[in-house]
């Protein structure tokens, strides 16, 4: 019996994959394996085993230190072989997204990254992903025997723990140290913000002329009880942290209300707001694409409209 193998360097993401892997495995008659690497492998193995994984392959091989993508890919290929896994689910974090294709190449597998849903259709696992830069969603069926899916974190929930525990197996791996050496690592600047869960969002873009002017956006966000988010265009200036980016390479939000200010509405941004219940936009350019997605549109200068809006909101 073939197995599904799940892996992520992030424990929560691995548990989400285990939840989906269990469901798919039950429907397809496949077992569920997981891999956990590095110094915290034993802890992760316990959690995975308690969430429905039949066998957790662990390794604390020193070559895995730093999680070099070449070594992790090789380790997973060896685990997949040991477990008899033909389908691998990896979380599409930045690490996972560069790992999945390298692993797929080793396994001769087809691969879909940034998967937003996995659905069993006529006995095949169909993966959805954004295409044409976010204009559309493509449903993909891999025709290779081995398949690798890199699934966006938070696509699935985490199942409740189950009674009984999966087996923990020491993986017999033969690994070389990574060709790339980690020299240093430092946390990113900026405060962590959870846009996925925000109910109201004010999204700011390059319509703001100066960094200091973002205060106007912050005031508006405060008056609305909203989180401040931004376009990648603005984040690339270094004015706001990357964790505030909404869109293809940022958060896919689903707030009740999204207000886009000085945002042109390029598809790579709007893909992250299209699930908002209500969208309003403020832009000087009446032809800006953002208006095609707006329930309410204001053609106007943010430097005039924002102070007026804040005043009206505060008067409520």
């Amino acid at each position, binding site marked *: 019996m073939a197995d599904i193998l799940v892996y992520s360097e992030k424990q929560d993401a691995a548990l989400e994959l285990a939840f989906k892997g269990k469901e798919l495995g039950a429907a397809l008659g496949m077992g569920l394996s997981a891999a956990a690497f590095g110094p915290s492998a034993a802890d992760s193995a316990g959690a995975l085993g308690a969430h429905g994984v039949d066998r957790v392959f662990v390794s604390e091989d020193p070559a895995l230190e730093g999680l070099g*993508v*070449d070594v992790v890919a090789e380790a997973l290929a060896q685990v997949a072989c040991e477990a008899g896994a033909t389908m691998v689910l990896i979380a599409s974090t*930045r*690490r996972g*997204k*560069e*790992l999945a*294709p*390298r692993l*797929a*190449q080793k396994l001769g597998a*087809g*691969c*879909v990254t*940034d998967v937003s849903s996995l659905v069993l*259709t006529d006995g095949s696992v169909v993966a959805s992903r954004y*295409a*044409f830069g976010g*204009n*559309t*969603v*493509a*449903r*993909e*069926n*891999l*025709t290779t025997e081995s398949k690798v899916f890199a699934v966006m974190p938070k696509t699935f929930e985490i199942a409740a723990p189950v009674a009984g525990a999966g087996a923990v197996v020491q993986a017999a791996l033969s690994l070389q140290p990574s*060709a*790339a*050496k*980690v*020299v*240093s*690592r*430092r*946390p*990113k600047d900026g405060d962590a913000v959870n846009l996925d869960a925000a109910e*109201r969002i004010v999204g700011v873009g390059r319509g703001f002329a100066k960094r200091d002017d973002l205060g106007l956006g912050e005031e508006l966000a405060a008056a*609305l009880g909203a989180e401040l988010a931004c376009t990648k265009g603005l984040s690339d200036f270094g004015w706001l942290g*990357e964790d505030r980016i909404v869109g*293809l*390479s940022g958060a896919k939000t689903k707030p009740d*209300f999204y207000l886009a200010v000085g945002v042109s509405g390029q*598809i*790579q941004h709007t893909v992250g707001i*299209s699930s908002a219940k*209500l*969208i*309003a936009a403020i832009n000087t350019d009446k032809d800006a694409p953002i208006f095609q*997605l*707006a*329930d*309410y*549109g*204001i053609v*106007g200068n943010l430097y005039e409209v924002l102070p*007026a809006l804040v005043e*009206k*909101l505060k008067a*409520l």
Partner: protein
Amino acid sequence: MDIVVSVKTNLDLQMIRIKNREPVLEAIPYKTGDLDKNAVEAALQLRDAVGESKVIVLTVAESNRKVRETIKEVLAMGADEAVLIVDPALESTDQAGVARTLAAALQKIGSYDLVLFGEGSSDDYSGQVGPRVAELLGVPQIGYARQITAGGAGVLVERSMDEYIETLEAPLPAVLTVVSEINEPRIPSLMNIMKAGKKPTEEWSLADLGLDPAAVASSCETLSNLAEEQDRKHIMLEGGAAEQAAGLVNALLKEGIVGR
């Protein structure tokens, strides 16, 4: 140092209109991949910093017509040479097929110290091609580069991960993918656009690489490709700023967003 940059041509995504959830793709102009231009810029800066280096751009497409403007643009930016892999069999390939073609082309080029990619293409954004090529060539890969320093036998890369900035060191040859914050791609001058046409350009078919069309057949079957449904009100609020602001606040009251 020989730096190869892998560059893709895609449709101008901003021009795609949706009709009955279907993307309308007729008469949409082509555009050079956004991050690929960042990769070219990074290569040019490295070349000028290291000296005695050249930048070769490499592209894979089903027709010469599709990539012509892209090649002209990146040569005008300052790349030294171009290699085009053009073959009708590439019409229906996937990222694995593109990677196999690129790896074969790199082997034919023979000498490469750094191979640069975008972190993702503008249209597919799959991020698969770079890592697959790295595996095929058996060389180290470092993704999401935001700063690259090369010298001697190695490369030092600062890269942007989800929660931290990491600096890695790797021996050459190596595959790197870049993120947009690495640089602002230069806009070619008129003079350089004129000169671009004279730069050495090679065009190879799959057969020239010893590849069979079956080697690039897609293993990814697209069952459907539709826009998500959007039903928006499209109400424009008229008047001066004060009036517009009042209009929006009233709308938000009515929608139950504020004043609850």
